[in-house]
């Protein structure tokens, strides 16, 4: 017998269930408990950058809206800097910018809206540059392990993005791109299954 490897195993995931809002967004669940909820504002009003609003729905394999989903957002500032010590440029991140948000859809319609600033391109090790994008993480009843994906912008040059270029089929690549519908407004639907299933990322 070889020596045992002493690694611990990651705690296995379980669904966030239908009542994830109680813990992570109690106001949406219908009550007020904390002095301040976390993730209600990705970028304060005075954060430098272009304000954008992204509207969409999460849609299941039957074509129905997933009304109990929670989406977390993690994004860079307008200069492409993440406010985290492991970003080499983090000392220059926009003051007060958290880059983190929690988005809850309307429970009746399933429509969600993300209000934020458009992030800048992010320089990667090795010299490539990630096109402006939001990192998304979805949890809901029926989702056993949170789903990662990204949201890019249809009015940006996405041609050199290293992640988009890993997606071989053009119609699948388009599932990651929010289309501009008006000035500063974009549309982004996330399809969990079926035709045009969104590309999910194993990060």
């Amino acid at each position, binding site marked *: 017998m070889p020596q045992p490897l*002493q690694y611990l*195993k*990651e*705690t*296995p*995931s*379980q*669904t*966030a*269930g*239908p*009542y*994830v*809002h*109680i*813990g992570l967004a*109690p106001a949406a*669940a*219908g*009550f007020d*408990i*904390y*002095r301040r909820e*976390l*993730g209600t504002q990705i970028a304060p009003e005075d954060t430098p950058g272009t304000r954008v609003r992204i509207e969409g729905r999460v849609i299941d*394999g039957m074509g*129905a809206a997933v009304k109990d989903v929670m989406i977390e957002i993690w994004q*860079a500032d307008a200069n492409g800097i*993440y406010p*985290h*010590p*492991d*970003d080499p440029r983090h000392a220059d991140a926009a003051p007060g910018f*958290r*880059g983190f948000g929690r988005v809850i859809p309307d*429970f009746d319609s399933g429509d969600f809206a993300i209000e934020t600033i458009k992030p800048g391109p992010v320089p*990667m*090790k*090795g010299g*490539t540059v*990630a096109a402006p994008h939001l*990192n998304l*993480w979805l949890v*809901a*009843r*029926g*989702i*056993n*392990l*949170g789903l990662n994906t990204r949201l890019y912008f249809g009015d940006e040059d996405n041609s050199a993005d*290293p*992640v988009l270029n*890993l997606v071989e089929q053009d119609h699948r690549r388009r599932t990651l791109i929010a289309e501009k519908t008006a000035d500063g407004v974009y549309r982004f639907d996330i399809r*969990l299954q079926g035709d045009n*299933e969104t*590309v*999910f*990322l*194993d*990060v």
Partner: protein
Amino acid sequence: MTTELYQRDRWWHPPALTPDYKTSVARSPRLAQLSLQGGVCELTGPTFGHGDIDAIDNNLIVNYAKTGDAIGERILVHGRVLDEDARPVPDTLVEIWQANAGGRYRHKKDHYLAPIDPNFGGCGRTLTDAQGRYHFLTIKPGAYPWRNWVNNWRPAHIHVSVFGTSFAQRLITQMYFEGDPLIAHCPIVKSIPDPKAIDTLIAPLDLNAAAPLDHLAYKFDIVLRGRRSTLFENRPEGS
């Protein structure tokens, strides 16, 4: 310096499609995920500090008190957040939510006939200390029925959300209680294929941490993905 995480063991986590948990059928992606080597976008993540939360937030017995303490069996839930190398994860946000002692959630969509406890909100949050430790004072949640098969009951459980230092470590799970006979009958528990993995979600009774004449205790350690010690330098970038 940002270093990559260990690959997630997808045979340890529940798969997306677990038909006995019916809601997963229409909500499970069917196409292959795109695997990325970690880049700065996922290896960074949101950070929280003591300015974001209040000291009372981890005491669910009193953090929503209106006329008195919450009703139910008083328990301490405590443990550590570690990574796969058994290193503590300090200063990370742990959030929990749960039903009350009768198995009822304070949520506008929960209409189970058990009563709402006016003094129980059902959520708490805290930051781990320098050794990765956390604790919550709460009441033991009740089991509750749910619509899946005709007579499915969730074992008593507490939902747990943890951040770690990378967005790619983000994890939500559920903690169960030692000795609960409903664990073996739950389609959500059984979405996890490996019984050894299920065992890691069951918190043992911890009498050493109980406070005499006050509360019982359960211990629940949480493990997040570990990190390679190799640096990025000279490494081709996947994302």
